[in-house]
């Protein structure tokens, strides 16, 4: 299994290199190389995750190692879909290095053996994890598009077309793609939260327990809801929308990582580097864990 992950990382990194040379030389075949490499990496990654799934008999999200690996996989999947829809060739210079960095992090974090727990064996957990991670991936893309938008907008406003002006697509394209990403991300996040609530209710009889992860997910959700509302109602677009997408991503990152490191709660074990017996016991005794397995 270990070798598969290494091949995956290599393919992702080569793809990132391909995209960077494409950025500089603007030759069509370089973009194609980048795309095929990331596709190959994704397939390799899929095989490796499927292998773990089969041995565990459930979705592997027990520790940070597994959790991030799934996140990287979802990101790659969303990138391939995004690429198919928008054909925004240059976007690979953001997405593929991001996937590569996540996968390098995965390889550095020890994969502590975990015992399979019955709470993960549920359709609700699976859909919760995948939906929330796919939503996060879409927000990550909206963030990247926001940055590209600001670079391109700055070039046009200041009237200094530099290195990126020629290489980046039009403002309208970046803005639209960012909007689609946020709509998709918001829908997926909403779905993920609902499945989480349903599962929590089924296991512990409560929808909402004021767990910090829940609270911050709620805040993130409200933020994106406000952003979408303004876009639909007042036609918010361009620079402001791009900045909001960037801030929204910061909220999302905090919900994903920050909450787990700063607060205690029923999601914290998934980012723990060394699973402590006591924590697991406390959580299990506390009788409210698991409703969002990762986000």
């Amino acid at each position, binding site marked *: 299994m270990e070798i598969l992950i290494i091949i995956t990382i290599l393919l992702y990194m080569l793809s990132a290199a391909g995209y960077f040379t494409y950025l500089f030389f603007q030759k069509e075949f370089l973009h194609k190389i980048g795309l095929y490499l990331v596709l190959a990496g994704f397939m390799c990654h899929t095989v490796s995750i499927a292998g773990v799934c089969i041995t565990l008999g459930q979705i592997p999200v027990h520790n940070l190692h597994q959790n991030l690996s799934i996140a990287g996989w979802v990101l790659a999947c969303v990138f391939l879909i995004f690429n198919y829809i928008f054909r925004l060739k240059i976007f690979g210079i953001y997405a593929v290095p991001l996937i590569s960095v996540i996968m390098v992090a995965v390889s550095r974090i020890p994969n502590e053996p975990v015992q399979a727990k019955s709470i993960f064996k549920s359709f609700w957990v699976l859909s919760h994890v995948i939906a929330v991670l796919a939503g996060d991936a879409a927000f990550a893309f909206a963030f990247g598009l926001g940055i590209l938008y600001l670079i*391109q907008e700055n070039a*046009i*406003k200041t*009237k200094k*077309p530099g290195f990126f*002006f*020629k290489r*980046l*697509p*039009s*403002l*309208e*394209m970046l803005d639209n793609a960012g909007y689609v990403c946020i709509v998709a991300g918001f829908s997926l996040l909403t779905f993920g939260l609902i499945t989480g609530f349903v599962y929590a209710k089924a296991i512990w009889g409560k929808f909402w327990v004021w767990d910090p992860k829940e609270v911050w997910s709620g805040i993130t959700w409200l933020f994106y809801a406000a952003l979408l509302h303004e876009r639909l109602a*007042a*036609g*918010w*677009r*361009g*620079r*402001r929308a791009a900045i909001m997408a960037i801030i929204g991503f910061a909220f999302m990152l905090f919900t994903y990582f920050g909450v787990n490191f700063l607060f205690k709660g029923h999601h914290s074990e998934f980012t723990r580097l060394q699973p402590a017996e006591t924590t697991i016991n406390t959580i299990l005794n506390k009788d409210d864990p698991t409703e969002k397995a990762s986000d």
Partner: protein
Amino acid sequence: MTDIVLLGINHKTAPVELRECIAFTDENTGIALDSLKTNSGINEALLLSTCNRVEVLLVTDDASVAIDSAKKFIAEFNNIPLTQFEDSLYIHRGDEAVRHVFRVASSLDSMIVGEPQILGQIKDAYKTATEKKISGVIINRLLHRTFFVAKRVRTETGIGDSAVSISYAAIELARKIFGDLDGKRVLLIGAGEMAELAVEHLIRNRASDIRVANRTFEHGLKLARKFNGQAVRIEELIDCLKVADIIISSTGSPGFILTHAQVKGMIRKRRNRPLFFIDIAVPRDIDPDINKLANNYVYDIDDLKGVIEDNVEERNREAIKGERIVDEAVIRFREWRENLAAVPTIKDLRNKLESIAEKEVNKTLRSNNISQENAEAVHRMTRALINKILHDPTQVLKNNSCMGDKSNYLDITRKLFKLDE
């Protein structure tokens, strides 16, 4: 051996005041070529005169004589003393002259590198020279190579890629803001060549719904009809702001036609849709502060010039690749010219005949069972035959009995016997 000589002045060596003094009109070019033809030192000639350069390309047997008479000719023809322009004159000979012609045609030597007009001008100049029957083998060959090189440089480098004209730069910017210009609404305020050119570019990029606002409604109507659009009164400008995507302004108004406050008031009604202002007027029509508003972009004439300057730098980088293509072509042309000398041609001719003879003799000897002694005799006879056949042509090519047009004879010889393959 004949020599290729080029002398001329261009925008780098002479100011426009001087260039216009020795420029040749189309009509004068013909007359000038006629009188150059009477000069016995000049075998072939080509005269190129554009607003940025005047160049004379000569094929001659004696370069220094030809240069002197060409200088004198330019001075006399334009009625200005030689001393006045002699310092600005550049003179290239041989490979350097060939390289210069290639570079000029490929637009590597132009004021705006990569501008496409120069090639057409050279084609016209060449056409005039052929009509006056003053172009010969060398100029014909050189110019055909030139057209080929210029085409290669254009297609294989990015020398003509980025916009270096005001109106085209504006379109490129619009594409970076809107992406597809299909269906974008254009508002033209005022009139003017550059503004109208920009509108035409936009229409070619499938922008639709052209509106024209003009102080005199009638003039506006005429313009609108030209663009298949709609004329509006200048008082309706604010209403047009609601729907327009691209506004091109070029009026003679002393103050701003559109102010920051007016546009700001429309933002909400426009639902923040981007708006691109192209201000070609001097003094400016569009309040530059509008550029500070979100999703509004204002480019005035100086900004567009700035964009062009950057693109020019880009072209200069691409030009380096063009120089490489030119270098290659210069070497190939030199090889062709070296072959055109008498000795290599005679040698090639002899080799060709000998190889044919040997092949045929061997075939005959093999199939007819001829003894060693007899075979020797056949070989001797073949060699003698070749020498006899080649004697007269060799004399003609070697001696200067071709009435000063030796390269023509050499060229024909090479073609008749396919010596270049």
